[in-house]
């Protein structure tokens, strides 16, 4: 059986081009950290008289927050992280649950797409945060926050999946018909699997965007979570070093989420013989 050799990570590191790219990445990161550590504070003081926390101060505030907390802060950072992740996953889950079938049907039935077209196109440019009044008036409790995350994930999932349907090779439809498939067969056995790579891309992007909305989402009605922590540290208490620590965490977690989704995407596509 012919099959391309799977190149594992160790093989790739031995490849000197890949090693070169890793080294460049490390250099870039170090340069940024040095600038943050020594360059930003003097600039801040000269522009606005206020100090700006350094990288090491922010990082140690972040690490500290996992085991220490002030009395105004009801949770340790690990718990905050848990609350935020759950909210993001919920919003993302609901978005996928709604957007994927919707997109598949829109791609499959022209009339359905035309029906939803104006609402979708007008809603799309509205950023999740602008929906805050809708969330605040119509929803209570956790649902408010989850709703904002939902909005972040919804459109990337919808659009990518829809694009997936539209880019199916029309020849596959012809083939399916000549093999005896009914319309229902074609939908379930051709359209759904054929869009899977676009669907995965949509899910990957959608989860990332949902994570990005967490700070603003928690501002409007959560009383814990990473976003709440950042907002309260910075704006309510004026402890900027803690807010920056929170930002570092958000960046890293966002990256980790992206990497996980990327691996899932690649694995599943290989599983299905499409990559």
């Amino acid at each position: 059986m012919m099959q391309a050799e799977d190149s594992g990570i160790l093989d790739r590191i031995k490849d000197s081009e890949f090693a070169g790219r890793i080294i460049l990445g490390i250099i870039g990161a170090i340069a940024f950290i040095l600038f943050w550590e020594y360059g930003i504070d003097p600039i801040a003081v000269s522009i606005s008289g206020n100090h700006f926390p350094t990288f090491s101060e922010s990082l140690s505030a972040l690490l500290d927050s996992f085991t220490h907390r002030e009395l105004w802060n009801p949770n340790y950072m690990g718990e905050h992280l848990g609350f935020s992740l759950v909210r993001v996953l919920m919003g993302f889950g609901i978005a996928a649950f709604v957007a994927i079938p919707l997109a598949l049907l829109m791609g499959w039935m022209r009339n359905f797409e035309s029906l939803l077209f104006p609402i979708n196109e007008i809603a799309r440019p509205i950023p999740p945060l602008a929906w805050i009044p809708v969330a605040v008036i119509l929803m209570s409790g956790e649902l408010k926050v989850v709703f904002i995350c939902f909005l972040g994930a919804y459109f990337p999932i919808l659009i990518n999946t829809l694009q997936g349907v539209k880019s199916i090779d029309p020849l596959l439809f012809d083939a399916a018909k000549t093999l005896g498939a009914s319309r229902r067969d074609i939908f379930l056995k051709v359209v759904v699997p054929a869009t899977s790579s676009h669907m995965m891309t949509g899910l990957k992007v959608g989860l990332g965007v949902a994570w990005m909305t967490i700070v603003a989402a928690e501002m409007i009605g959560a009383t814990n979570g990473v976003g709440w922590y950042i907002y309260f540290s910075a704006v309510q208490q004026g402890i900027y070093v803690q807010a920056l620590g929170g930002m570092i965490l958000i960046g890293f977690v966002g990256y980790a989420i992206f990497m996980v989704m990327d691996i899932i995407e690649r694995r599943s596509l290989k599983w299905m013989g499409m990559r």
Partner: protein
Amino acid sequence: MDGNALISIKDLKVSFKKGRKVVDAIDNFSFDVMDSEFVCVLGPSGCGKTTLLRVLSNLQEATSGKVEVTRKVDGGKPVFTQVFQDFALFPWRTVRKNIEFPLEVRGVSAGEKERSSSQLIDLVNLDGFEDAHPKELSGGMKQRVAIARALATEASVLLMDEPFGSLDAQTRNLMQKELLDIWQKTKKTIIFVTHSVDEAVFLSDRILVMTSRPGAVKKVFEVDIPRPRERTSKEFIYIRGAVLAELQAEFDKAQAVEHTRDKERSKR
């Protein structure tokens, strides 16, 4: 109509709209296909060969005329199925799963499915590749999967639209031999569209040469040579020459029509 005819096409006309004009792709087309025969269809580009196949496999509607199928087919099994030049395999399915597609669609049981697909895989000589995905296969292998898949529909008639057009010369020759082998084993009726006179003469019982657009039956050749056929034999070369000449004449006519059209356009 010949008592042996499986398919009887009478006065078939297929038109479509091209901008504001109505263009006839096929007109006055009448032809009978015999049970279990191998027919090749040749003709200049644009003569409607592909359209003919699409109408037969119900991918497109005829404007007028009749296609009659004499024998009743078992419920659930189509009369026609098609094999495409670009293979049209489902990339996310393995070889076995691609072949099982028509069986799934018919609701065949799991055990039966596996038995049938194994038989077909064996028939097209793909043993060992059951679990490969299309992207791992060569062109010839992909087309074999496509043929096996089409056979899985248990349709009576195999429509083939230049199925070997994407393959290199050696693979092409090999596939032609394999197809004949499969045909003799399964006794299917095959309508095979091609541009290659050589291929047509090698494969078919009869060769149908179509006119240029709108396509109609220009001439039908009987190929009486016993198989396996030698490309260098006298009979082969004779028929090939005759078909080529017929084809060439039609080709020249098509060119002339184009030429006048161009002239008129440039005059405006």
